[in-house]
């Protein structure tokens, strides 16, 4: 377990963590909300894209059956 953790540590961006450590927990939570808003928006956009794709494929298949 420790060996794997040490491998993961090599990829950690310490400069990002140092920037976070300059903030208070309240400031971190505000930044976190902004970041999560973006993540949720991306998720919603991806879901909308998947739904649209499924609908278009279903419509296309329906037209092919009719033809």
């Amino acid at each position, binding site marked *: 377990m420790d060996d794997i953790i040490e491998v*993961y540590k090599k990829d*950690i961006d310490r400069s990002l963590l140092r920037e976070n450590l300059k*903030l208070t*927990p*309240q400031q*971190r939570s505000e930044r976190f*909300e902004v970041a*999560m808003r973006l*993540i949720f928006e991306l998720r919603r956009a991806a879901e909308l894209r998947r739904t649209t794709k499924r609908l278009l494929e279903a419509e296309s298949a329906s037209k092919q059956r009719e033809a």
Partner: protein
Amino acid sequence: MTEKGFRDILGALCSGNVEFILIGGLAAMAHGSARATVDVDVVYRRTLENMHRIEQTLAPFAPYLRGAPLGLPFRFDVATISSGLNFTLRTSIGDLDLLGEVVGGGDFERLITHSETIKLFGNDMQCVTLAKLIELKRAAGRPKDLDAIAELETLQDELES
């Protein structure tokens, strides 16, 4: 969970005077983690008074067992809370893991000695210390936590250097 869910759930628990300790991904964020999380994990105090507060606080948000089939006769009241221990809930304002005990940390009374008061999302609350959070993650021993442990231990290194 929505982007407001974290603030809404923790705000409701604080407004309802629920005694809890923040653990998990949000506690990691509070200590400086840069990782995203969608969970709100708390250890709650298992006194009758606190369980009443939890029931009253969450009642407006229709708590239901996450992943359970819809339509089960589930009532989240003091009787349910006292006869159970750990609950993974879905509410109208987001998901909440309400834990009576946690591996490596025990119950509220044990964990409170390893917590500190922090201000998060506009509310003062108890949050597990960074050192204890690392212990909890290590005790859980889940493969998905290994990179989180690496980040938390790096944070600890940075704080000590």
